[in-house]
């Protein structure tokens, strides 16, 4: 009985076929393949066409796994064993369709996920590469703009010192505004791309927060008044006077928010509020808020306004690129904070963020403040003595401008070199008080020359104060120039006041 069942069972799942040397069916059992005695298997399926080669081989046995023998009707996936016999070849065909179909599903999932992952990685690498290229381009581009902007700013300054008609005065004012705006845009663009490429790092120093806020309040009260707007400033009394943080970047965040508020508000008021959240050990948590009574920002626009180059369509076409808010977002992220916006059309807007700042210990603070005030008190030059400066700069326009700035102060005798190769000789033969030197010079570089000067045996040459000037104001570059021995490095564009301050700081120390 059981034998009968077994036969029946096997009939469904196995087939034995005996073929001769030519591939003709001699005998068979089972029903898997629709074959007849005397039939040539090669005609049944191309798999068997390759049998010729096998018949000629010396091996007594072969096994083929997972062969698809689709014969038009139903799919058959089988393992096929071949055993050499004296009559010819015995084929044993095992139907494993079900088994292989479930295996196929597994392989399908596996392969698809591997390929997807691979393509995602490729895509990301490509995007990163593009982003990197974009940032590099922006950085280089903004550096290229520094020299011409520097000339433009300086010439504006020079012109304003000449006698002008009132119409010319007005035109010059417009020019000065444009310069300032351009400089700001340049700085913002650079900052954003530096943030994006991870090159911007926060520099935490001790600073007087009250003073900074007072300055902001004063500046924006004036600006608001000029636009016929109210400006209010409120700070909680627990806000500490001295904190440790990146003053410049915090200032940048607040000015951007305030400028933005002023720009879009036509009527009403703008306010700056600094609240106190809590103080833990030596860390204070503050809440900054800039509120305006402007047109408000529709809800659907809110998620995108912090993106680079997005700007609300405004009816009176305000100038600007909308870089400010993107910069705010990026800078705050570097300070471990997030900008929050509450706004609705017609209801004005409130931009706010929480910020944790270190509050320094009393003694360390006193020391730093002393240093700070000492530096500012000996800022400007004393009358009487004139200093001898060596100015090394190859860009003619910049040179003209610098020359004029320095001459105007009437405190310097100035020698000019345009070729870095002549610096060393000139320095040895003359007694200078200070060198003002561009970094990128024809034939050589300012930082290289500095290195050589610092290695000189003569004390008067070796210790000569050197101020570098560069349009490539990357943090790491600036640092490298200082390591080469430059006392100070100025990033172009700079203005007359910045230049003179730095010169006198060195001359008097």
């Amino acid at each position, binding site marked *: 009985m059981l034998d009968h069942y077994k036969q029946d069972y096997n009939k469904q799942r196995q087939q034995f076929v005996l073929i001769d040397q030519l591939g003709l069916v001699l005998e068979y059992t089972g029903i898997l393949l629709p074959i007849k005695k005397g039939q040539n298997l090669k005609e049944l399926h191309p798999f068997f*066409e*390759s049998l010729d080669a096998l018949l000629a081989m010396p091996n007594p046995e072969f096994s*083929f*796994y*997972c062969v698809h023998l689709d014969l038009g009707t139903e799919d058959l996936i089988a393992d096929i064993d071949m055993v050499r016999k004296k009559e010819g070849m015995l084929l044993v065909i095992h139907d494993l369709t079900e088994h292989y179909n479930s295996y196929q599903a597994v392989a399908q999932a596996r*392969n698809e996920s591997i*390929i997807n992952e691979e*393509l995602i990685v*490729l895509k990301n690498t490509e995007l990163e590469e593009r982003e990197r290229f974009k940032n590099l381009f922006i950085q280089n581009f903004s550096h290229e703009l520094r020299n011409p902007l520097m000339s433009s700013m300086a010439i504006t300054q020079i012109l304003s010192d000449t006698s002008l008609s009132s119409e010319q005065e007005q035109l010059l004012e417009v020019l000065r505004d444009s310069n300032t705006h351009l400089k700001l845009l340049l700085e913002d663009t650079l900052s954003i791309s530096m943030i994006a490429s991870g090159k911007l790092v926060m520099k935490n120093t001790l600073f007087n927060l009250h003073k900074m806020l007072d300055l902001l309040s004063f500046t924006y009260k004036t600006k608001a008044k000029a636009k016929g707007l109210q400006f209010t400033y409120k700070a909680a009394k627990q806000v500490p006077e001295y904190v440790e943080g990146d003053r410049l970047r915090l200032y940048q965040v607040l000015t951007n928010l305030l400028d933005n508020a002023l720009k879009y508000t036509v009527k009403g008021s703008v306010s700056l509020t600094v609240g106190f959240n809590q103080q833990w050990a030596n860390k204070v948590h503050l809440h900054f808020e800039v509120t305006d009574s402007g047109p408000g920002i529709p809800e659907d626009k809110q998620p995108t306004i912090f993106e680079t180059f997005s700007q609300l369509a405004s009816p009176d076409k305000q100038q600007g690129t909308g870089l400010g808010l993107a910069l705010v977002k990026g800078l705050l992220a570097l300070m471990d904070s997030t900008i929050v916006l509450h706004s609705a059309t017609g209801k004005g807007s409130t931009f706010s963020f929480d910020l944790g700042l270190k509050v320094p210990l009393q003694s360390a603070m006193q020391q730093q403040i002393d240093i700070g005030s000492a530096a500012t008190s000996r800022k400007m030059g004393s009358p009487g003595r004139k200093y001898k400066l060596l100015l090394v700069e190859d860009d003619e326009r910049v040179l003209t401008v610098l020359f004029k700035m320095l001459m105007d102060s009437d405190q310097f005798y100035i020698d000019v070199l345009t070729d870095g190769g002549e610096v060393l000789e000139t320095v040895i033969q003359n007694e200078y008080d200070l060198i003002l030197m561009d970094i990128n010079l024809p034939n050589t570089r300012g930082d290289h020359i500095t290195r050589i000067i610092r290695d000189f045996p003569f004390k008067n040459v070796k210790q000569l104060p050197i101020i570098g000037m560069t349009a490539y104001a990357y943090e790491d570059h600036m640092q490298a120039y200082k390591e080469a021995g430059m006392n100070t490095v100025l990033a172009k564009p700079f203005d007359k006041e910045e230049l003179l301050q730095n010169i006198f700081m060195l001359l008097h120390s």
Partner: protein
Amino acid sequence: MQRSKKVVILGHFGVGKTSLIRRFVTNQFSDQYKVTIGVHISKKVVTLSAEESISMILWDLEGTDSLDQVRDAYLLGTHGVIFVFDVTRPSTFQQLNSDLKIVSKKLPERPLLVVGNKKDLVSEKDLNELLLSHNISHDFLTSAKTGDTVEDVFLNLATLLNTDA
């Protein structure tokens, strides 16, 4: 006179082996990816001249990560080889040279064509740069999707197999 020649199509998974055969045999293409397991065998008769034609028995093998994993039984009695890689996926051609070494060890002295598939997905310029930077020598660049250069591959191999006798 018509002779049968067994051709195996090798390469990593998903490179388009099945699609190339499908394009050549039935002139069809599908965007759907159905992973091949084991082997599918199909056949196409190629006419070389008025008197000569070859019946190509095309063994479409499952893709593997490495050619070491190919089951030897599948390769028995092979006359010619097509190795396919995917020009959009570096993992399928990064070890091309060692892959080809394995092929020529397992199947010495058989005609072998190296094919970069899916060329429709990359620009010609990027493609050339890519191949150059990876130091890849290929015989054909194809697209199973558009049919570009697909027939050339098989006809070229047929000719090689024919002169091989």
